[in-house]
Each structure stands twice: as C-alpha cells, then as structure tokens.
C-alpha cells in the first residue's frame, strides 16, 4: 500500500508551521536558528515528495543542503561573536535598537 503524496505534504506543512511556532516561542538564539533549519527541512521534504521519482527533487535538496550548511556556518559564527560580546544567548537581551 503506497502512501498518498498528500500525507507527506501535510507533514511538511506541519513541520514548517511548527518551525515558525518555535521561532516565536524560543528565546535562545541557537534554538531559534534550529527552528529555521527545521523550516528548510520541511521545504526539502516537500521537494522530495513533489518530485515523485524524478531526479530534480534530489538535486534541489542537495543544493538546499549545501546552502543551509553555508548559512549555518555564518550563523554560528555570528552566534559566537554575539556570545563573546554579551555573554548571553537570550534574544531578549538584544534589543538595543527599536522604534
């Protein structure tokens, strides 16, 4: 019994939504960033599900992963810098500018 594709897509939409929930809920910079990674993963799942046996989906997933890895590298470097300067990873501590 094959699984209808819509189930995978539903899972991907759920993961995407949960990622956005986490962004609002979590205060830790690192965890917020993990939520973004989760959203990217949700998109990847959608790509694989949509590609239905063609190579394109996997190729896109590959490229997205490479991009995500690059993003993670820069993002984590930023986190390290922030922590060094402020000794905190609480996003509510970073509110110097507003209005």
């Amino acid at each position, binding site marked *: 019994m094959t699984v209808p594709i819509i189930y995978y*897509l539903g899972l*991907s939409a759920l993961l*995407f939504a949960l*990622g*956005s929930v986490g*962004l609002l809920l979590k205060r830790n*910079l690192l965890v*917020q*960033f993990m939520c*973004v990674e989760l*959203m*990217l993963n*949700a*998109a990847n799942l*959608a*790509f694989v*599900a*949509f*590609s239905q046996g*063609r190579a*394109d*989906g996997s190729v*896109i997933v590959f*490229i*997205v992963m490479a*991009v995500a890895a*690059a*993003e993670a590298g*820069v*993002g984590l*470097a*930023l*986190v390290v*810098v*922030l922590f060094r*300067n*402020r000794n905190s990873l609480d996003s509510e501590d*970073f*509110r*110097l*500018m*507003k*209005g």
Partner: protein
Amino acid sequence: MNDSILYWALLPEILAGAGGIFIVLLTPFLRGSRDRGSRLIPGLTLLILLGAMVALFTVARDLPQSPMKELSFSGDTFSLSFRFLLLLICAVISLAARPFLEREEIFRGEFYALLLFIYLGMALLSGSQDLLSTFVGLEVLSIGCYILLGLKRSDLRANEAAWKYFLLGSISSAFFLYGIAMVFGATGSTRYADLFALMGSHSDKQATLLLNCGLALIFVGLAFKLALVPFHSWAADVYEGAPSLIVAFFSTAPKVAAMAALMRFFNFHFPRMHYSAGHFAGWIAVASMTLGNLAAISQQNVKRMLAYSSIAHAGYMILAIFIDNETADTTLFIYLLAYSMMNLGAFLILSLLSGKGDLCVSLHDLSGLAERRPGLAALLSLFLLSLTGIPLTGGFTAKFYLFGSALKNGLVGLVIIAVLNSAVSAYYYLRPVVHMYMKPLPESPSPAEVPPVPIGFALAIGTAALAILWLGILPSFWLEFAEKVNLALK
C-alpha cells in the same frame, strides 16, 4: 546546450569570481604589510570591476538575439542593464570603502572579495532563468550581506543588526524555498521557460491554486529583501546598527537585484501572472508607501529616517511590476538607477559625517553643517531633494517616468496614492536640509569634527551626484541607453 555562448555571456561574472578568489588568495601574503595590502587590494578590486564592466559591454555588443531559455541563466539585455547598475554600485562602494573601513578599524582585504562574490549572486538574480538559480543567487547575496553586517565585531549594535537580519533573512529564505516547492509541485519544473509554457496550456484550477500559493511565497521572500511592509521590520534596526558605508551598499544593491528578480519573475516571464498576484502586491505597495512615509516623519536618527524612506521607495518601485508594456523594464531601470545613486550619495555623506563609530547621525548633529562644510551640505541637500523628487534631479525623472507609465497602464488609484505620498515625503526629507542651513552650530555636545574628505569618498560621492544631475537634466542619454538595451528582447 551551447556552452561557449553561456561562458561568453557570463564573462563579467567569471572575471569577478576569479578576481574575488584571487584576492582571497592574495590577502594572506599581504598580511605582514598592512599598508601595502590596503593600497593594493582596493585598486585591484576597482580594476576588476571596471574590467567586468568592459566585458559586459563587449558581451552586449554581440549577444545572440534569442534569450537562452534552456539555461538556468540568461545573459539577455534585461540582465545586462541591471548588471551594469550593480557593477556601478559596487565600484562606487569600493571607491569609498578604504577610508571608511580604516576609520572603523575593520579594514580587511576579504571585504573586497566579499563584494565581488556578492556581485556574482546579484548578477545571477538579475539574469536567472530558473527558480533554483534565483534561490542560490539570493542566498549568495544574503550570506554575503550577513558577513558584511557582522564585520564590525566589537560593535554591539552592529552585532545585533547582523543577527536580526540573519535570522529574519533565513526565515524569509525558508518561505521562498517553500514557495519554490509549491511551484515545483504544480508544474513539475523550476525553469521559467517550462513554467511559462505550462501556464499557457494549463487550465487545471487546482494546479493554478497551488501555483498561486507558491508565487505568493516567492513574492514574500523577495519582498523581504526589498523591505516591503509587512516584511520590513528588520529595515530600521539594521540600518541604524550597521556601519553606515555598509548600509549604503545594503540599501541599494540588494534592492536592485531583488527588484530585477521580481520583475523577471512577475512581469517578464509571466505576462498573465500579475493579474491574480497583482491585488495583494498592490496592497503591499500602498502599505509600504504610506507606512514608510508616516514612520519616517517622527525619526530623529537620519539613518532610521532613510530606512523608512527606502521602504516607501520600494513601495513606489513595485508599481513597475504591474506595467504591462515595453516600457516596464526601462522605467524600472531608470528608477533604480536614480534611487541607488541618491541613496548611495546620502549614505556616503552620512558615513563621512558620522565620525568614528557612526555615532553622530541624528538631525541635531547636522545642525549648522552649511557653515562648516558648505560643499558637503550642498551635496547632501541635492541627494535629499532628489529623494523628494524635485525637478532637475534624477529622483524627479525617475518618479515622472514610473508614475507616468503606471498611469498609462490604468493604475490610477495606485498612482494617486503614490503621488500624494511623495508629496508628504517632502516633510521629512527637508528636515535635514533645515538643520543644515537654518540651525546654528550646536554648542554642546560638539559634533564630531569632520575630517577632510578622502579622495575615494570624493570620487564616490561625485559619481553619485553626477549621475543624479545627469539623470535630472539630461536624462535622454540614460533613457536611450535603457531602451536600446532592452529593445533586443521585444
């Protein structure tokens, strides 16, 4: 696939990429003698950028007439004009960068390599023929910008700005990517040409629904880069916190690239698309103009004020994607040229005036500038008047063209709102002018002493001012340029 055509069309980008890699490799060898490096690398970058510009024109001269639809990048004339503009912006920035970076003690040779790499990403955006290329181009641009923003590691505000932009940018990338997934699901391809063909034949309602959802999310991703309301929340904080020279780059080049991508996607390859997508984009345009202008009124910090003003300008620009005839890309090009030059000019002067650490950027700090530095005050006034849209400046020409051709397309409501908005905007654009010319020098705390203008800055600001005046007084040259460049497509 004809590889040689592809490589030929990509010649400027190959030059820039190779140059960037060369600079990366070169910097460690110059580490010992910082002075030599700080002289050599900016010059080299400028040379590379000029070389790329020459290459661009060479390519333009004997470009194959048919756009290369089967590739994921097209070196067509549309992208040519925008790549020219992007190279121009990068060249202006690299002219002014060294004195600024040295003042802030963040001079690194790698900055120039990053600039070249970011150019690559933006060029890819402007000529992309495939959603995946668009995504990668956008990411090259974004990640480069994250690094630039974080470059001033010791500054808490710059750190915060970098993090905010990073996190929000990543979220918008996720939305963009999910949008691509939807489009991919609806059409089975990410290539513009395929999408176009499928959309022409497809009449499946359900597929259209999925496609529209994807397009909307893609629009969201690009709208974030343009800081359109409601995706603008990062703009003011990032503009305020980041080093002002980087803001100068940041408020212009990515917008040019994102606008080119938006134009290509929503106006260019999808002639039918904007009718359905148009409504919400119209609302977004109205919201951006109105809220941007309203929010700018009460700002005391000039950088924040210009941030909100650029939100409003992004709102005006969006009108261009609704224009349904040949003038659309010419109009957009002219608008972006004027916009980027006046913004560059204003921010460059601000970064000169703001002193070490970018601390003096409030209206108060501009008081009496006309007494101390009449030349700088006059130039800043020129840029602000151009942003207002006073005739004989580039800003007027750009608005006149944009609103005129939008009106020709029957966008009466949008144009009326835009014209009224640009009337209101005079209120806050003139406040710095008032402070410069009509307020006495503040007694205390005394503003930072403005050093003599470094030659690089002078050249950069001069270029921007020249472009603004040229575009304002004799715009025919640029109009013909843009039309000639865009003609081959039709």
